[in-house]
């Protein structure tokens, strides 16, 4: 799915001109932005809560080793098992080995961005294991063979008409004339299909929103309760998540939960918070017999000690996507990476390599709205700018950009030369103007592609000041 910068320009061009996508993305405001605004202004001191959350996450990512060791000890003492995966390939291998050992053929899955990040579903299929996504949005895009377009609402790019079309195509054994015009009809159809999947599943795979070191627990929040069914019904439950998700204890997690749900969907709490802390004990009637946690590094420790380290504080609430005007214009797929939007811009250059992902930190006007809403106060524009500096140092911007910038800087450092050039330039621009504007200029295709340039006065400020 990895794209390059040129492909991004092409994809974004198509995306902004897609009326259906525009309609779908138009829901961001009502769905997420207003909801977050009410939820955060409703809370007595949301700013203080953000500070507290940022401090907890900062402490966690700067104490990863001791916290993860404590987490492993707690999980092991309850009969669970922790596995470590350095990269995506190792993570896939660990999961597949666990499943093969337990003879699993069908697995239900809760929504997990880390599973997308490591490309788990394709790997499972290649090994003859059938993954069934149980989150409604994930289920829809799985039917469409699409990646998620949003980190908490995977099918956000679709309208309900798109979903109805998808269901008609996929659920061929149902009455073709059934009414799918209402959201509720779509939800209940998906429920019926999924219930069968839950019953026949040999294993369940989920992500985790937080791992608590002291209790050895993995927490997931969902609005559909599918997380509970995924982890409780099958024999084996595997949690696949990033190492940075660990926090000291349940108290810390509860502070973050308050931030997460308010920032994500504007809810004071989601409908379901599942706390998973090990395999089923003899005195309990349900729960898995095997409990595994696969902790994925995949470049995360590489960020420690760099100016992008703070990106590891992320709790994947998606507020930065929801308030990003670029995301709002192009949607998630145009980015061509698992993590779109501002958090993607902060993570992808490390995850995919700067040469593959330098368009992500460039797809921003540095308007700063993302940092303003981030519940754990990640300085997203600062991190994007850091990646642009790495990009520039690696010589990745096109030669014409670098040469242009170099010439401009050369002149700007020499006021006399600069005065001369600007004097000339403003005369030439004035000459080229018609009806108060310039319609086109060579070497400035980017500007003139969509706009004119208002006519300059013809004499620079400095010139006029001198002669006044």
């Amino acid at each position, binding site marked *: 799915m990895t794209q390059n910068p040129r492909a991004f320009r092409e994809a974004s061009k198509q995306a902004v001109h897609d009326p259906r996508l525009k309609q779908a993305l138009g829901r961001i405001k009502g769905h997420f932005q207003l909801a977050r605004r009410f939820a955060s202004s409703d809370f007595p001191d949301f700013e203080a809560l953000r500070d507290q959350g940022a401090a907890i996450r900062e402490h966690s990512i700067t104490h990863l080793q001791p916290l993860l060791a404590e987490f492993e000890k707690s999980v092991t003492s309850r009969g669970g098992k922790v596995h470590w995966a350095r990269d995506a390939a190792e993570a896939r291998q660990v999961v597949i080995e666990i499943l093969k050992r337990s003879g699993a053929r069908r697995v239900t899955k809760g929504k997990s961005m880390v599973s997308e990040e490591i490309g788990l579903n394709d790997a499972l299929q290649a090994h003859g294991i059938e993954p069934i996504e149980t989150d409604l949005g994930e289920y829809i895009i799985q039917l469409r063979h699409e990646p998620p377009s949003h980190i908490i609402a995977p099918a956000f790019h679709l309208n309900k008409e798109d979903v109805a079309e998808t269901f008609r195509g996929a659920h061929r054994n149902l009455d073709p004339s059934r009414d799918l015009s209402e959201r509720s009809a779509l939800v209940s159809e998906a429920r019926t299909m999924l219930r069968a999947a839950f019953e026949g599943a040999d294993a369940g795979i989920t992500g985790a929103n937080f791992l608590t070191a002291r209790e050895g627990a993995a927490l997931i929040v969902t609005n559909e309760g599918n997380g509970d069914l995924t982890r409780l019904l099958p024999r084996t439950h595997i949690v696949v998540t990033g190492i940075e998700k660990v926090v000291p204890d349940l108290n810390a997690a509860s502070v973050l939960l308050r931030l997460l749900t308010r920032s994500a969907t504007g809810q004071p709490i989601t409908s379901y918070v599942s706390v998973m802390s090990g395999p089923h004990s003899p005195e309990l009637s349900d729960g898995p017999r095997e409990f595994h946690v696969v902790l994925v590094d995949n470049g995360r420790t590489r960020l420690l000690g760099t100016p992008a380290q703070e990106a590891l504080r992320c709790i994947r609430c998606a507020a930065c996507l929801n308030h990003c005007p670029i995301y709002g214009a192009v949607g998630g797929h145009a980015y061509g990476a698992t993590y779109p939007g501002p958090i993607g811009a902060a993570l992808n250059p490390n995850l995919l390599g700067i040469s593959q992902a330098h368009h992500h930190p460039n797809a921003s006007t540095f308007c700063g709205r993302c940092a303003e809403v981030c519940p754990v106060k990640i300085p997203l524009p600062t991190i994007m700018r850091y990646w642009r500096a790495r990009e520039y140092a690696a010589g990745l911007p096109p030669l014409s950009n670098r040469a242009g910038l*170099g010439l401009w800087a050369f002149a700007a450092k020499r006021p006399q030369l600069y005065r001369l050039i600007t004097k000339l330039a403003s005369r030439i621009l004035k000459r080229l103007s018609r009806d108060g504007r310039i319609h086109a200029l060579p070497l400035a295709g980017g500007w003139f592609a969509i706009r*004119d340039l208002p006519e300059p006065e013809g*004499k620079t400020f400095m010139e006029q000041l001198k002669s006044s």
Partner: protein
Amino acid sequence: MRVGLFVTCLVDMMRPSVGFSTLQLLERAGCEVVVPPTQTCCGQPAWNSGADTHCQDLARKVIDTFLEFDYVVVPSGSCAGMIRNHYPEALKDDHTYHSRALSLAKKTYELTQFLVEIAHATEFSAKYKASACYHDSCSCLRELSVREAPRQLLAKVEGLELKPLKDSDVCCGFGGLFSVKYPEISERMADDKISDAKDTDSSLVIGPDLGCLLHLAGRAARRGETLKFRHIAEVLANCPHPSIGEGT
């Protein structure tokens, strides 16, 4: 007080009337204004492109030029934000210049904030007969926390009816080099802003940053809109110049 006026490279070349309006406003606010003739650009295009060495060179020049003044005033939120927030960061490893960057940052202000909070001057007997909306620039809002000052100043303009603009905290899609790197996304953002402005029934959009205004005026002209665009300094100083993109 001695104020160094940094007109910015865009104003210098594209719209000198903003510079003269600013000069006038500052003098009427009782400042002794000096325009250092060696000023060029604050280096923001280099900083935002990750060209740190170029940016550091330019930052040092700006510091040398402006450090002597009591205050430095800039008729642009993004250039003022560059000096206030990013110079200290850009020069953090330069032992000589880092402390200078910090002291320049402390005395640098965006025009409207300076007039209201430092010079306490809000009365300029300006007249402008129009209904208008105000486009906050992102750097004014989020880098400098300037929201009330321009509104306070515009409320005193006789004949001007200021209408609230929907989504006034959303970017217009300029973003410096972003506007040429991703013109299609920039176009969508500009179009959204222009339709929100039109929805207010205003004939004029006023803003604190020439970059946003050139971008929006250029896009509006391309679309054949009749909406007019002006920098806030021009409105406050009764600038007789035609509005942006209306010729000279």
